[in-house]
């Protein structure tokens, strides 16, 4: 177990920046998930921590020791790769025990450790098989075993579940969580899957364009996204956005004069362009005459079993509302209301979150 400190980390490929000034501290035993879209620099960041990628500038320190110039094998990190990266010519037991062989561990001790790890992962009956003779889930377990056997200070996961089917992914997710709880090792998990991120993370790091957009617990980030990007990226179905302008009173006014949150005031200059955001599950179905109500025209209903997704338009904008399956979809014209506590507002200019003056009313 170890703590990690990353300061002003930069990575530039030729003239293209991949990671731009990342600062991050990870506590001992913490499970941190780095989430972001493809090309946001999350894998590059992980690979720099692992030592597989040269650092253009900045510092990576493990347990306060700068490891910038250390070889990957000397950093005390183990990594689980997206495509498992198992040695095709070696058996499962040779794959799991290779790092110990390299480290010069005696055969008897090696075999003992291999057996222990294999039993923990349910691989004890496959030890003589080659990777090609295993299913995707079993290969993933071997990759996990290979990482675990060295008792590394830090576990690094580079989208390890993305090649598995949905059922297996859930199973492995739970397994990773269980192993982390048992081993208590510091872990960094890179993914673009928000469900994985939300369920696994002690702390979530959302990246975009080579920079960290927000760091926090999954609930903090979901409930209080710091930027338009985070608000849009996290959540399924995604957050609804309504363009608006701040009037002289500091209230948000939509294009056709509607005021979706009439009692909230923002400290923004009049005329500032903003976007009001609301999660589909937070919208309330009301009559069209209600104050602040936005008329909603249903175009399609998706029944997901546990809930219905109502896709439609409000003042010409696409919007989605979520209803529990038990709740009936109104058969008459209706509107949606944004509860004050569910309003998110972002400045159009820089995408920054702006809280209303009476912020205490938000939560």
């Amino acid at each position, binding site marked *: 177990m170890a703590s990690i400190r990353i300061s002003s980390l930069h990575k530039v490929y030729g003239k293209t920046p991949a990671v731009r000034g990342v600062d991050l501290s990870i506590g001992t035993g913490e499970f941190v998930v780095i989430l972001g879209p493809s090309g946001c620099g999350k894998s590059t960041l992980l690979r720099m921590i*692992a*030592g*597989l990628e040269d650092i253009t500038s900045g510092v990576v320190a493990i347990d306060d020791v700068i490891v910038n110039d250390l*070889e*990957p*094998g*000397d950093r005390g*990190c*183990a*990594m689980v*790769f*997206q*495509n498992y*990266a*198992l*040695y*095709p*010519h070696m058996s499962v037991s040779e794959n799991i025990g*290779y*790092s110990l062989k*390299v*480290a010069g561990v005696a055969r008897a001790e090696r075999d003992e450790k291999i057996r222990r790890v294999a039993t923990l992962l349910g691989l004890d009956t496959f030890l003589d098989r080659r990777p090609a003779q295993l299913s995707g889930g079993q290969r993933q377990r071997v990759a996990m075993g*290979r990482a675990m056997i*060295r008792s590394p200070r830090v576990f690094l996961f580079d989208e390890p579940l993305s090649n598995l089917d949905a059922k297996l992914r859930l199973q492995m997710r739970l397994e990773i969580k269980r192993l982390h709880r048992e081993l208590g090792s510091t872990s960094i998990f890179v993914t673009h899957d928000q469900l994985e991120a939300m369920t696994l993370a002690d702390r979530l790091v959302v990246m975009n364009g080579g920079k960290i957009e927000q760091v926090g617990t999954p609930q903090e980030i979901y409930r209080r996204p710091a930027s338009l990007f985070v608000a849009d990226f996290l959540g399924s179905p995604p957050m609804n956005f309504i363009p608006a302008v701040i009037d002289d009173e500091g209230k948000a006014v939509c294009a056709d004069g509607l005021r979706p949150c009439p009692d909230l005031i923002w400290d923004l200059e009049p005329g500032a362009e903003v976007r009001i955001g609301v999660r589909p599950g937070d919208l309330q179905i009301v009559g069209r005459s209600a104050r602040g109500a936005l008329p909603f025209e249903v175009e399609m209903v998706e029944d997901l079993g546990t809930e219905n997704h109502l896709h439609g338009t409000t003042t010409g904008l696409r919007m989605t509302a979520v209803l529990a399956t038990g709740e009936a979809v109104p058969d008459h014209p209706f509107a949606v209301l944004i509860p004050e506590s569910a309003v998110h507002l972002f400045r159009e200019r820089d995408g920054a979150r702006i809280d209303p003056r009476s912020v205490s009313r938000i939560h």
Partner: protein
Amino acid sequence: MTTSMNRVLSSGAAVEPEVSRKARPRIRPGALTIHATMILLAFIAIFPVYWMVVSSLKAENEIFSTGLWPSAPSLDNYGFVLSQIPMLRMLANTTVVAGVTAALHVLTGLFAAYALVRWRFRFSGFVYGLIALSWLVPFQVTMIPNYVLASRLGLLDTLAGLIVPHAAAAFAVLMLYHAMKSFPTEIIEAARMDGAKHWRILWEIITPNLRASLASLGILAFISAWNEYFWPLLLSRSIENSVVQIGLQMFMTQEGNLWGPLMAASTLASLPILAIYLLLQRQVIESFMKSGLR
């Protein structure tokens, strides 16, 4: 019951001729032409080998007869060859030269390809280009400098002199460069994470997975070194330090060629290559396909 039975029987009877008609292989005219052409080409390729073996069994007075089989087959020509030149010694020399050359091709090719693919250094692209260009330089251009060098190093009339100038080949580097380039980077990175350094990665991770390419290269290099004639001709002085291709020349004299012994010696010279071909038929064909040679 009877009606349904009849229906089954009648339907079966109706289906049966259809099935048997489908099962009978139909020969299309196109396929027939292709097969005929392939048979002809195979005959053209195999007949000289057959003629060589048959001629080696013929007596001197029968050597120019067009008979497909000698009237009195004998091994006299083989006895003559073995008594006139140290054929077994030459075969052993050739095996050593071809074997060591092939091994060195593989070894130097592996090292160079690993360095070019795995190490990032300035002008690596230029170095790769130079190696690729050197493949295009004909032997005749490097022949004299190589000869002078071998002479100064005291390698004239030695087996080492036949091996050393051919220890590295651009073809080997290029072939293994591409094989190594297509090797998954993640596996190498996994080995690095496991603590392996370059030497281990090369021998324990990459090499076992490039067996097919290495076998192909080894076979090609062995055949090429076995068939080498011109360089041994320049370098060899004594028959004891010579290779089998030079031995064959002994039966081509100014008074005329000794066709029977020449064919017997050629058969003996071809035997190891034929053995390799018969043992590793699939790998040999694969290696020729991979290298783009026919």
